[in-house]
């Protein structure tokens, strides 16, 4: 373990994060919403802390080992939210540290669960800061998934690697992590700009368009309005959101290759994208039919509009709502929560166990069934025609087991501390999958403010755990990790 080297890299990340506060500061000055002092103080404090850490670790080595990578990732996602709380705490004096940390974790993990209400009356720059946190979190997540996790080998994430020899990833994106990151960020930036213009075209103000472009590409559901997308009641705006949520939930490496080769063929051969679009599309049509049949909406067209927006929003782990789907017959929101557990593709800004793991799990089930019938047959799990190594399959199985165990544990902890069973289960699922809204007390029309402090910390931890693909954070918490 090279703690000083890890802290040195962390100091650089902190300094960059301090610079990111210039964005809401600039918005505040231009809009004259009176909140600039909060960002200036927060920026100063973050700069000071980052600078002090940088100076203190200046003589540390620069080389990081794999084990250091785990600690660095865990530290970045736990320390950054602490500094991200500063503008919130300085501007909203009544906000507790627990709630502010929850809001910041929710932002930087691109979850979109909120404890704030009265969003329409917040200083506009504060909403921009909330949205920008999600966008930054999304940037971090893309690099984490495509470049860092595969190196660490977390839960079968070798499969996420851009260099994996599958048809859709048959060439190295670029030879180095930094180059890979630049390529993916370019796509991320381009899609964000396109989303902003599309929202503006559909009728949002520039400010709303910017905030929602950040949160759409980051797949976190923060909005500038308490009523989320119901504020506009515009099918045009909802259609734009659906398109960009779907794009953001597909592997950014696939987008990069499509752009690089000027070809849409890469989407056809990406094993995840096809299944993702198929499962989400079928769910939208199915839930719309179910809602129309149940009489929730008077006709199939209206049911389709609401089902399309809310199912895509939850399945991609975004968390916007254009209606209180808490009111739908319980099967529909439960199916949506089930979808958010696995639908998003690896290398996207979505969360959950990821489609690639679900595919391997599904294929492993059939492999086992076939093995029972034909014990001697050689039948490897294949993905896009390529056999998947057994150790990767075992890593995926272990990941899914830990994932389910964590959801059970968080549900029990929330229930133990007084939440009703629907709230406890849905909050655990929505937090672990970085979706945002759950059901009942934490439904799309309410906030997480009704949870007590203990429950809020549980949800914050669940969001971090889910975002860091479980093992990255869990391994740091084991005594063996710290032994020499």
């Amino acid at each position: 373990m090279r703690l000083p080297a890890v802290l040195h890299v962390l100091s650089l990340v902190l300094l960059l994060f301090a610079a990111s506060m210039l964005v809401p500061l600039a918005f505040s000055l231009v809009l004259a919403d009176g909140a600039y002092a909060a960002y200036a103080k927060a920026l100063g404090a973050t700069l000071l802390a980052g600078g002090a850490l940088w100076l203190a670790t200046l003589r540390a080595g620069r080389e990081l080992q794999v084990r250091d990578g785990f600690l660095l990732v865990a530290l970045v996602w736990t320390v950054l939210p602490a500094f991200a709380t500063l503008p919130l705490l300085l501007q909203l004096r009544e906000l507790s540290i627990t709630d502010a940390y929850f809001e910041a974790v929710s932002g930087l993990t691109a979850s979109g669960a909120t404890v704030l209400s009265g969003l329409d009356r917040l200083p506009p720059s504060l909403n921009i800061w909330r949205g920008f946190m999600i966008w930054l979190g999304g940037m971090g997540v893309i690099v984490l998934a495509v470049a860092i996790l595969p190196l660490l080998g977390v839960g079968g994430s070798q499969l996420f690697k851009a260099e994996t020899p599958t048809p859709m990833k048959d060439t190295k994106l670029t030879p180095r992590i930094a180059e890979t990151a630049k390529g993916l960020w370019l796509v991320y930036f381009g899609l964000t700009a396109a989303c902003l213009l599309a929202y503006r075209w559909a009728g949002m103000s520039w400010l709303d368009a910017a905030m929602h472009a950040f949160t759409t590409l980051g797949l976190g559901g923060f909005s500038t309005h308490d009523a989320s997308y119901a504020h506009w009641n515009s099918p045009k705006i909802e259609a734009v959101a659906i398109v960009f949520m779907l794009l953001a939930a597909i592997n950014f490496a696939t987008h990069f290759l499509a752009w690089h080769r000027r070809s849409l063929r890469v989407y056809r051969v990406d094993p995840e994208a096809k299944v993702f679009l198929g499962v989400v599309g079928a769910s939208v049509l199915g839930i719309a039919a179910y809602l129309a049949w149940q009489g929730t909406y008077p006709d199939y067209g209206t049911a389709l509009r609401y089902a399309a927006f809310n199912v895509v929003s939850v399945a991609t782990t975004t968390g916007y709502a254009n209606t209180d789907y808490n009111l739908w017959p319980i099967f529909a929101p439960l199916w949506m929560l089930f979808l958010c557990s696995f639908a998003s593709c690896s290398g996207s800004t979505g969360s959950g166990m990821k489609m690639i793991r679900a595919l391997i799990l599904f294929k492993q089930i059939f492999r086992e069934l076939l093995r029972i019938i034909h014990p001697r047959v050689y039948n490897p799990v294949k993905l896009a025609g390529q056999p998947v190594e057994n150790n990767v399959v075992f890593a995926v199985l272990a990941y899914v087991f830990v994932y389910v165990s964590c959801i059970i544990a968080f549900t029990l902890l929330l229930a133990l501390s007084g939440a009703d069973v629907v709230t406890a289960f849905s909050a655990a699922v929505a937090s672990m999958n970085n979706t945002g809204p759950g059901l009942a007390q934490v439904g799309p029309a309410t906030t997480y403010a009704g949870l007590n402090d203990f429950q809020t910390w549980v949800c914050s931890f669940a969001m971090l755990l889910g975002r860091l693909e479980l093992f990255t954070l869990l391994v740091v918490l084991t005594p063996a990790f710290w032994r020499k």
Partner: protein
Amino acid sequence: MNRVPVRLAAGPLPELPAGWVTLRPRACPCCAGRVELQIELARLVREQKPRGVLIEVPDAGHLPALRRSLAEWPLAQYLRVEPAD
């Protein structure tokens, strides 16, 4: 979503048409208990599918704020307050 009619009462309960249910909020429905009311109403509408809801409050002082809550998102999306007689 089909909007369910709502009546508000703070005194003697009026006679209700068939299929209507009465909701007595546990906390003050216009301030601290607003979220709780929201959740109770959502659950009631989803599970019981009533033809209408009568919300009974302990005193008439709550009525104006309650009326405002019911006219805002998300309650306004699926509830329609009937004008007072």
